[in-house]
Structure formats: C-alpha cells, structure tokens
C-alpha cells in the first residue's frame, strides 16, 4: 500500500499522495511518516543513517535508528557516504548525495498552502488548478513588511514546473541541494497521511521574484570546531552574557573534517574538555 503510494508520488513529482497511514510505536509528529516510508523501502542489503537537526546523536534519531536495527536487522551508520537510506528531520546532509541513495524526510505539515488556507478541500483544489497566487501574495507581503521574504525554513519550492511543495522544515539553506539531486527524495507525513517525492534529476526551484531573488543563509564565522565554511551552523550558547559559538549542524560532516585534520578556533579547547 505504501509502496504503491510511493510509486505514484515518484511518477507525479511534488504531488501529495494520500495513504492509509498506520499507527506506529512512535508518537505522531515524531517521524511516523518517515518511519513508514523507510520501512516500506528498506531491505537486508541497506545501510541506514538517521539524523535529526543534522545530527546522528540527537535522542529521537538514536531512537529511530535503534528501532530499525531491532526490527529490520539492518546495518546502520553515521557516515553519509556509506548510507543507502538516510532518514532525516529538518536537514539535508552537507556531503553531496549520489545516485542510488535515498533521502527520506519526516514531514509535519505536507501542505505548503496550509497556513494560507486551512481547509484541505480548498488546498487540493488550488493544487489541481495550479492556483498558487495566494503563495506569491504572501511572499510579496513579506517583502512589503520586512524588506525581504521572511521565510527561513520550510521555504516553498516548485517541482518540475508544476506542484508547489513543502520541502519539510529544512532551513532554506538546504533548498538548492534538492535541485537536480542525484538521490531519490521521499517525503512521509504520517499524521497527515500524505506521501510525496522528488525523483533524481528533478528541477526544484525555490519561489522568488525577479527583483527579489531567492538567497540562502550565510554565516559570517566558520564552524568553531572544524573550520568549515559554507555549511549550516548551530549556535551554541556558552554563558549567560551573550557568549556563543557556531558549530556544524551536520555532525558527521564536522567529525569527518576534523578526522582529516581541519581545526576550528575552539577545537583545541573542546578536545581538552572531552578528555
């Protein structure tokens, strides 16, 4: 049933396919859509990686990885390059994904128009008629009010020139990675009972205006641990006087860089403290 929904989703990129989402042993909103998609495609030969906020060691990622290690007896990894399936919440790994890899997104609200129009009957109609004016008005109003588009995550994209799609609450920083990705991208929304997909080598364009082009977040400082630039960073509070540092959100990428000898400004201290 889920595989059939997945086939349909791949065949109609960006279209939300309703499916008979089952109860999972994890709570709704904690990745039940992603778990169902992963469970539907995983096989004994697969290697699974699970990340939450870019990190392999956040508690919910640990919990989901342990679940599949137990019930599917599959190999697990934290290394992006080794994984055949990567289940993610809120991030796309920094390392470029390659052909044969599948990225499974956990999606809370699959409908990009939901906060503009709460009724499902209406939003389905809007998608059917390709009626996305409301979304453009919203983005325009952002510019009128704030001088820029004030959407930083779950930034709407248009897939293959047809469906406007919610990329899940990944930061808009990750949107360009979806475009022409070599990997298959599957999206599961368990509570909302929707599956959608972006097949490999598909156009994914972030919505914008000619005079207000889409842009991603830029961080002024590199990662304090590995010195990486051009990656998404988490802010870590160091004290209660506003002291803070920025570190990689993608923990695997950060560890890999440090293993290869890259050092950020605070890496030495962190290593000392860890000993």
């Amino acid at each position, binding site marked *: 049933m889920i595989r059939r929904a997945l086939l349909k989703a791949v065949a109609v990129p960006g279209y939300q396919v*309703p*499916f*008979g*989402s*089952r*109860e999972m*042993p994890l*709570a*709704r*909103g*904690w990745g*039940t859509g992603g778990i169902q998609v992963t469970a539907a495609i995983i096989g004994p030969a697969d290697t699974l990686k699970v990340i*939450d*906020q*870019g990190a392999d*060691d*956040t*508690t919910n990622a*640990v*919990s989901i990885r*342990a679940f599949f290690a137990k019930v599917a007896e599959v190999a697990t990894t934290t290394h992006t390059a080794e994984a055949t399936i990567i289940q993610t*919440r*809120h*991030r796309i790994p920094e390392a470029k994904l390659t052909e044969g890899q599948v990225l499974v997104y956990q999606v*809370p609200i699959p409908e990009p128009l939901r906060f503009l129009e*709460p*009724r*499902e*009957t209406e939003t389905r109609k809007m998608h059917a008629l390709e009626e996305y004016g409301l979304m453009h008005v919203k983005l325009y109003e952002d510019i009128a009010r704030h*001088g*820029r588009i*004030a959407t*930083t*995550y*779950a930034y709407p994209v248009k897939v293959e020139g047809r469906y406007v799609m919610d990329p899940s*609450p*990944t*930061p*808009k*920083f990750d949107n360009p990675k979806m475009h022409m990705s070599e990997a298959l991208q599957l999206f599961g929304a368990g*509570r909302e*009972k*929707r599956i959608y997909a972006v097949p490999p080598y598909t156009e994914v364009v972030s919505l914008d205006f000619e005079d207000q082009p889409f842009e991603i*977040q830029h961080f002024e400082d590199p990662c*304090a*641990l590995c010195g990486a630039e051009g990656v*998404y960073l*988490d*802010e*870590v509070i*160091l004290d209660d006087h506003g002291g803070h*540092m920025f*570190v990689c*959100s993608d*923990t695997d990428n950060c560890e890999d860089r440090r293993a290869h000898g890259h050092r950020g400004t*605070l890496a030495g*201290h*962190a290593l000392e*403290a*860890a000993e």
Partner: protein
Amino acid sequence: MYVAVKGGEAAILATHDLVAEARRGDAGVPEISVAQIREQQGLACARVMNEGSLYDADLAALALKQAQGDVIEAAFLMRAYRTTLPRFGSSEPVDTAQMAIRRRVSATYKDLPGGQVLGPTYDYTHRLFDFALMDEPRPASSPLGGEGWGEGRQNGEGLTETASLLSSDPAAPGHLLPHGEKESAPLDAHMPRVPDILGAEGLMEPEIAPEGDPRPFDLTREPVSFPADRDVRLQAMARGDEGFLLGLGYSVQRGFGGNHPFVGEIRVGEVSVEFIPEELGFAVDLGEITLTECQMVNQFAGSKDVPPQFTRGYGLAFGHSERKAMSMSLVDRALKAREFGEAAEYPAQQDEFVLYHSDNVEAAGFVEHLKLPHYVDFQGELELIRRIRREREARLAAEPETLPEAAE
C-alpha cells in the same frame, strides 16, 4: 568549554529506568494488579478502549498500568498494538434494540414501553468524599459499589436471571437496599429504542443505508477525504477524544451551532457480536460487549422536499461511556448540517475541523513533538531577526531626525 552533546543512547536507556521507577512509586505500597484496574477502574478502561479503538478490557487495564494512568498514553499503546492484529473478517452489525439493558433513560417521555431503568449512574450521587474508601481494603464493597457497577458483566446472562439472587444470602454488607430489593423487579424483555417509536409515526428522520449497503469506510486503513461521509465521521468520533467532543458538543448547546437537542434515549448494556465464517455460512456468537448508545432528537423545520421532522444525532461507545456517547451524538447532528442544507458556520458543523482534530493520539503526538529539538529552524529565525534589526538600526542612523508630519 563546549563539547558536542553525546550519549543520546545512554540517556534513553536511563529514562526508561526512571520511568519504571516512577511507575512503581513507593515500593512499600503494594503493586496494583491489572485485574484490579479492570474491575475497579472500569470507566477509565472503557475510555481507553474507545480512544484506543479496541475492545479488550484486560489490555486496556494493562495499558493504564503501564502508562501510570495516563489515558491518552494508554490509548496510544492500544492503537499501536491494534494496528498489528490480523483481521479475519467483519462481524454482523450489532443490534442495540436487542441489548441486555443495564441502564436506559429517555428525557423525551415520562414513561415508555420497557420503562425507565436508572441502573448504575453517578448522576444522583452527592459529590462528597466517601472517606471510608480511604481505609485499608475491606472485604465488603462501599455503599456505591452495587452489582453491575463495573464494566462488563461477567456471567453474560440476561438481567432477569439475577432475580434468582433473591433466595441467596440476605445480608449484603455495604449495600443501601436490603439484599435482593434492587433486583426484585425483573426488566421487560422488550425495550424498543425511542427513535424507533418516533420513526413508526414518521416523525423521525429515517436512517437509510447508502445504495447497495456498502461496507463502512475504515479510516485506520484508508486516508480520509473531504467532505467525509457519515460512516467516516461516526468512526472518527468513536475513537475521538472525549474531552474534545465534549467541548464541541457543549459549543453546539451554547449557540455555536443551531441545534436544540433532547436525549431521546441513552441505553447501556450488553449486545452479542456475531460473525459468519465463510466456511460455515451461518452466524456464530463471538461473545458480548458492553455498549453505550445515545440518540439525540433534534428539531428540524423541514425544507421544500422534506416535511418538518425530528432529526437524529447518534453516539455509540464501548463500555459505560455516557458522556462520550452524548457528546458524539451532539456533534454527529451538527455535522449533518450539509445534508440538511444548513449553513456550516461553526466548528462543530465542519467535518474537516472536527475529524482532523478529534484524534487525541495524533494531536498529542504533534503537540508534544515540539519537545524535539528545533534548533536548525530556530537558527534560521535568529539569523533573520538579527539581520532585520541590523538593517533597521542602520536605516534609522542614516536618516536625519525628522519631525512627525503634520498630517499625522
């Protein structure tokens, strides 16, 4: 200095240990048994069976024990288990007209065939603490604990059978009436449902099965689409949160909905569940379940095609669950707005609103997922707000101070 947060796995194992400790509480107090919960917390078990969509009092009691009495968590355990069960078929429709009545009241008639049967109800108790219940357990039950109080009669016999208890032990400690008194009037075997009485006169909206009498929709297997048909709505409400439906039902009464309901009838009792195995071709009795059914009677002015008549709100729940069944029947009627050409202006009349938000397992999951880390998204917001503020300060600094326009 900062060290990347590690050890999610150890933390999870530790929290499982802590939960087990918290669940057990003071080891000096005897552990509660599943049977005690099933027998003495029957109304909680009924709620867990309803919201967990599974009729099994033992599992409901286990779920409550495992969840430390958290009803939604217990319902979640039931749901997660239920979805793994094989389905060997569908039962025949249960016939509530043939219910072995334990309680049956109508607010629309003073008396009616079969009479009013008060049965076990808290309705006329004074809500004063019975401090005798604080004492150590005694062999005799409290004055409130008469027979048939808990959920699910064990012997499954008809109520008239209990009259035979008259000849047994006359002393029943803890009972308010002399032993046997409350069983002295055997109940009528025939208890017609009140809406059926109205229906015979043509005053009640008839309930006609859709053409071909198709199998009801199964929302646990298929995604719901809108507008949702009545089978879907009733199914969603049957597993919906009692508190949510209570609030919506209340909103209908208070004017956020145009209905003026009467309790046509509430009945509580046992019905047998029958199943026709394909290889046998005749019905086999699988046992009986306790149900609460509520039928609300509502006014309807009629339309150009339909003469004025009463309309129905229907509620059905596992176990003795009157509040749930009543709330459900109020909302069921409100959700018929579209069928009757009424304006659906209020939340209780809108199927998307009611169906999407009544499932407490889904709602709790999504509300509580806010506990999960969101720092990636929050970082995006932080960056944006800092940038907008920086730009604003730069703009203010650049602009020469001007007096407000006179046109202000």
